[in-house]
């Protein structure tokens, strides 16, 4: 703890602007890239504000150690892990209890879109690495992980999407960053399936009245829908591009012909 964190007295100014200038319903700037890594079967990278997160997928592959293999479906494993340098104070590389819990709820958030029963005796392994952490990493990790699953060519029902809503200075806002999370009043991370509207991750801490909770949940769902569009664009960017090139190749061949 070289630097003691100090929080400002107000998180929203009189004009309704948050510390980084966002309005209550605004997402942080998001940059998504699919297929970032060479050696993984599928991968994706997301920046959301100062968050920098890599997700990679291996599988379906032979489950190892073998006694974990299941005769009727694939074993889905998920590891949410923070780099030692991702936080203000260095984090020990050994997984904390928080990381164990987030690995579990992330796996449960992703599982509903997979057809695990199609790949008996195998494992599907999802690795999420938080390279830099600035609030909302579990949701951003899920966003990247579902793209990595798609990039790995693993059949999925839908692209899981996720973002949190929260309460700061008594207002319900979207997509808390680290300061808003720590100095704020409540945090509500949500993951959902955009097609069906089903919620696959829901956690909450802080304090919400029933009405505040409903407002926050709806705001998170709206945020999820926006991120869902960005996810599809990122996929298209990777997979449409070559096709267009191929298309152009065809055209040029036609010309030549």
């Amino acid at each position, binding site marked *: *703890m070289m630097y003691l964190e100090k929080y400002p007295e107000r998180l929203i100014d009189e004009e309704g602007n948050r510390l980084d200038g966002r309005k209550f319903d605004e997402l942080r700037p998001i940059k998504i890239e699919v297929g970032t890594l060479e050696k993984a079967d599928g991968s994706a990278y997301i920046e959301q504000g100062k968050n920098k997160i890599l997700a990679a997928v291996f599988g379906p592959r032979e489950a190892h150690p073998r006694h974990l293999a299941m005769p009727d479906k694939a074993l889905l494993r998920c590891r949410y892990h923070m780099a030692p340098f991702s936080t203000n104070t260095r984090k020990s590389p050994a997984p904390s209890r928080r990381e*164990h819990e987030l690995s579990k709820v992330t796996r*449960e958030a992703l599982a509903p879109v997979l057809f695990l029963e199609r790949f008996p005796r195998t494992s599907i392994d999802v690795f999420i690495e938080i390279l830099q952490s600035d609030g909302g990493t579990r949701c951003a990790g899920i966003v990247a992980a579902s793209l990595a699953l798609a990039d790995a060519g693993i059949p999925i029902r839908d692209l899981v999407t996720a973002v949190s809503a929260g309460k700061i200075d008594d207002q319900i806002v979207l997509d808390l960053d680290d300061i808003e999370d720590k100095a704020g009043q409540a945090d509500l991370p949500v993951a959902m*399936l955009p097609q069906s509207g089903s*919620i696959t991750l829901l956690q*909450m*801490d802080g304090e*919400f*009245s*029933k009405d505040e909770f409903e407002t926050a949940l709806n705001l998170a769902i709206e945020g999820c829908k926006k991120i869902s569009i960005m996810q599809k664009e990122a996929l298209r960017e990777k997979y449409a591009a070559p096709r267009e090139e191929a298309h152009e190749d065809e055209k040029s061949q036609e010309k030549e012909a």
Partner: protein
Amino acid sequence: MSSAFMEIASKIKHKQIADLIKREKRLDGRTLTEYRDIEILVGPITKAEGSAQVSLGKTKVLVGVKIDIGEPFPDTPEDGVLTVNSEFLPLASPSFETGPPDENSIELARVVDRGLRESKVLDTKKLCILPGKKVFVIFVDIYILDHDGNLFDASALASLVAVITAKIPNYEIEDGEVKILEGLQDLPVQDYPIATTFAKIDNSLIVDPTLEEESAMEGRLTITTKQNGNICAMQKGLEGTFTVEEIQKAVITAQEKGEELRAKALGVRNG
């Protein structure tokens, strides 16, 4: 029993449970939002600074609170420390194993911890003895003795009762040293969080599932409410999903059940 046979038996049981729930009934005759009999025993462990044993039907959880004087965390130098730990004792279930806590045990401890912490059950400032140097450290240890379903609510309730009935010694500061005096005082209790857990089975929600019902459960949702009815913690578990409507309905039920169970907790505390 062959594993194939057990799987068929389990499917039959699952169908039976689901069919009943469709008709708003349960194997043990309860309504969908009814808890099993709740028994709360205050202070069974006299060597602990606080303790409580809670039974939900045949589920039995013992919580002990030990209190020590230690250092605060560097980023909260003026706050006492609260830590929650849980052990799924191998004697509580044939499915529990010895060894360090697994992810289920960690999740349970963290959900109980979140309920206590986020409801601000204790005024942690008042647990500070010498800022930056000495604070009270509260260890809440959850001991699962018998697992017949709904460990979350039983553990949260037992933890609450153990904490709100725990005592710390009177003390004074002499030349920068803590001197323990005669007599005990209550912890600085501020709220009474109650967790209510829902099992989703074939698109219906029930509260306080038994182990048998849990075997048919697709999704789990725990909602913790404060004395003022507000929500202070939520946790969705398992691979099933929830609709927004289900969640909204669950919040209302959790508020009702919270009041019901809170009254019991306050009753045993005062009684």
